[in-house]
């Protein structure tokens, strides 16, 4: 599988060619931010923003997923049509690719596999996109992430000099997409090396995350949590924009005897998340819920799924209405360990 190059000015036409064979999803301008949306035409792709305001998780784990439809009276149900057309997901930054990897470990591993996630995932080909410079909220340098490379993607495009992308072909499916692109020559490979050698400047220092699980385990009853949770509004913004958060709800909706069972995004930060039918609620305070969220993402998920449930994309930092900064929270938790 030979690597390729693609001129930035040819990106739209490359996507148009893909559109002839595939459904193509890519960042599309929404006015003040971009979101991953299906393209009608290649020129709709928008790379003006470093990354879309919400992560790539919604391509595989949408906010609303009809599990099946039913008739109440007969109690019979049918599933939605399975996916027929392959999708190409273009423009996924390494932080979001790492997010997909984390979600794969949750939805596709263990005693049960999530068939809805699996269906979308196996019918999607990933084209990753390297970063040229981080935003103030980015902190992927903490998570074993190379902003200019990822093996999760089928194709990975790194912007190199002279207005080109160096396209690493990393799978047979990637090869099928990139077959008509010009092969990369030695000079391009060298330009790639030079690009990768250029240091990237992050606004925050590296946090020693390896020390986290131990530090967090000791901290459960620490009064620090109250301080951390003080400004938190208890909304679900951080959870929803996050590439790795995966909590969901399942509810039945009916109208005149016909209905659907639908899966929707939920958040452990929501007050009623753990409420029992009896009225008992194990986590009644915002402090308990905030603690649960952080411990789950930075300790328990690692225990169960093998990776920390965070990729340093910084969306939570940017989107939080009260600028609750997870980087600061983690540093505080590490700093005061006894």
């Amino acid at each position, binding site marked *: 599988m030979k690597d390729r190059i693609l001129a930035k000015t040819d990106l739209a036409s490359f996507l148009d060619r893909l559109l002839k064979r595939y459904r193509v999803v890519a960042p599309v301008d929404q006015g003040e931010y971009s979101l991953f949306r299906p393209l009608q035409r290649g020129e709709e792709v928008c790379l003006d923003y470093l990354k879309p305001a919400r992560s790539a998780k919604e391509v595989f784990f949408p906010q609303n997923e009809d*599990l*099946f*439809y*039913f*008739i*109440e009276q*007969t*109690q*019979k*149900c*049918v*599933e*939605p*049509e399975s996916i027929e057309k392959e999708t190409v997901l273009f423009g996924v930054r390494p932080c979001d690719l790492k997010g997909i990897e984390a979600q794969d470990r*949750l*939805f596709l591993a*263990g*005693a*049960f*596999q*999530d*068939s*809805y996630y*699996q269906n979308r995932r196996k019918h999607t080909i990933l084209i990753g996109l390297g970063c040229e410079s981080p935003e103030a909220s980015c902190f992927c340098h903490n998570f074993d992430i190379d902003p200019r490379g990822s093996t999760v993607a089928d194709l990975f495009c790194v912007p190199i000099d002279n207005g080109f992308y160096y396209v690493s072909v990393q799978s047979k499916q990637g090869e099928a997409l990139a077959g008509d692109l010009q092969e990369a020559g030695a000079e391009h490979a060298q330009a790639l090396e030079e690009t990768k050698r250029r240091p990237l400047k992050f606004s925050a220092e590296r946090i020693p995350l390896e020390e986290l699980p131990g530090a967090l385990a000791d901290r*459960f009853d620490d009064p620090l949590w109250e301080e951390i949770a003080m400004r938190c509004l208890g909304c679900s913004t951080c959870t929803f924009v996050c590439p790795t958060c*995966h*909590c*969901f*709800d*399942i*509810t*039945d909706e*009916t109208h005149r005897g016909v*209905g659907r*069972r639908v*899966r929707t995004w*939920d958040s*452990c930060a929501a007050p009623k*998340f*753990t*409420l*029992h*039918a*009896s009225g*008992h609620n*194990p*986590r009644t305070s915002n402090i*308990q819920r905030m603690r*649960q969220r952080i*411990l*789950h993402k930075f*300790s*328990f998920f690692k*225990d*169960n799924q093998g990776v920390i449930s965070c990729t340093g994309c910084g969306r939570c930092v940017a989107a939080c209405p009260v600028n609750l900064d997870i980087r600061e929270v983690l540093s505080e938790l590490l700093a005061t360990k006894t």
Partner: protein
Amino acid sequence: MTEEGACRCDAEISNPYHPWPARIIKITEESAARDTRTFELEWVDPDHTARFQHRPGQFAELSILGAGEAPISITSSPTQPNLQFCIKQMGVVTTAIHQRQVGDVIGVRGPYGNCFPVEAMEGKHVVFVAGGIGLAPLRSVINYLLDESNRSRYADVSILYGARSPGDLLFKEELKQWGERADVQYYETVDRAADGYSGRVGFVPALLEEVAPSPADTVALTCGPPIMIKFVLQGLTKLGFAPSQIITTLEMRMKCGIGKCGRCNIGRHYVCIDGPVFSYEQLLAMPQEY
């Protein structure tokens, strides 16, 4: 949307959210308050009988399309012919189930969760301490132990059970049978007596203190209202039971039942995967958020 019709079989194998249809063949009113019923089910698809193999302590997500799902422990032992669920009416789904009649079809997903450590318990004495609806999950393992294919592998079996009033005692027919068996010590109590009741009166923890089982080579299994569990744990500890010798089963709000939705997460455990059966030793190591 495809045409209405029977559920697609190919989806059932790979789709973990798709309930399997089961017909209600018997409903037993368990409590005088008429809020607790045992539903006995039979699979609509005979294939499912062989494919749904559960172990004592596991639960299933019961589904009423239009109302939702609820996690209910399987009260029947795998040694019994049909699946049984003992359900207290509490919220939307359990109310919808209670409105069903014999012949109606409901959905079942499972079996989920871990199970009581019946292998590790072999050769030991087993003490059951149950209160109210807490007897329902324990009954699966009681009947498993008492089944003639298993009984000889366990030493003494004692059952301590109490309810608010005589009318609230569950599985009344079975309680009588347990009481009549030579190889079981059955003790019963009620919080308050009623006319015609001649048995013991008092709370379950008091009964435990009275019976005072020895912890030597013994495992204690307990389930009941939180307040009862609290005092039973204290009582067992006082009798010399180590936390690893005490087993209980947790109730938790659940949705997917398969460790994906995050709702039943406590510490590093998902109650639907690593539980609902936990030892007291494990509970002590978990955040007290259940």
